[in-house]
């Protein structure tokens, strides 16, 4: 398992995606699948950067772990911010025309669609979000 600890600010998004991409590059994963996994990871990190830490408490940190178990990649995000479960966000209605859509909520919906499973828990004052995706046959 590889681990990265980083300040949870949106400026660090590229470093997080690069870190995840670097772990995946050792595996034989298609570009499309890698891009999809990055899309999901971006949404989760973006949520932490936006909501986990209040301005009064200053920037906090996040830990990102990438592991490969059997045929799956497992990516875990941990932060010590306020309890926040992004999976509770209501799914957008994607059957209605674009003009009637609301702007928000698409990201977490996409992450749920892309990954095989996403689980959230709040444990020992930490938000822990674990997502899994099969990456090999």
């Amino acid at each position, binding site marked *: 398992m590889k681990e990265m600890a980083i300040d949870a600010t949106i400026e660090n998004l590229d470093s997080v995606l690069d870190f995840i991409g670097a772990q995946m590059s050792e595996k034989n994963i298609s570009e499309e699948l890698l891009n999809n996994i990055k899309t999901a990871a971006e949404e989760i990190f973006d949520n932490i950067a936006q909501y986990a830490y209040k301005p009064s408490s200053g920037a906090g940190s996040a830990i990102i772990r990438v592991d490969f178990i059997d045929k799956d990649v497992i990516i875990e995000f941990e932060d010590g911010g306020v309890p926040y479960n992004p999976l509770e966000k209501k799914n957008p209605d994607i059957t209605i025309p674009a003009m009637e859509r609301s*702007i928000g909520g698409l990201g977490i919906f996409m992450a749920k669609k892309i990954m095989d499973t996403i689980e959230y828990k709040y444990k020992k004052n930490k938000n822990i979000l674990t997502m899994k995706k099969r990456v090999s046959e």
Partner: protein
Amino acid sequence: MNNDNFTIMEENIGEKKVRLTAKGQITATTADKLKKKLDEVVSKKNNYIIINMSGVSFLSSGGIRVLLMYYKIMNGNGGSFFIQDPSSNVSNVLGMVALEEMLYK
């Protein structure tokens, strides 16, 4: 992935008509650059915007939010807003959220 990985070019293609050519990766950070460009183009009273996305290798949900926002602004004002020639990643993510209607046909 960094900011240098995203560029957007503007060209006039007629009376109040603009084509934007986006290249690179549209992440939560670079989506802001796209938004600024669209703001600028909309504020010049253009009523037709087409964005060529053949060179966009990664489109995030943040990027889709920006595109949807301006699609709604333009169409709400009687204008037009299209995505032209999407890359496979752009097609894939727009399909995921059923927003293919933004594509130029």
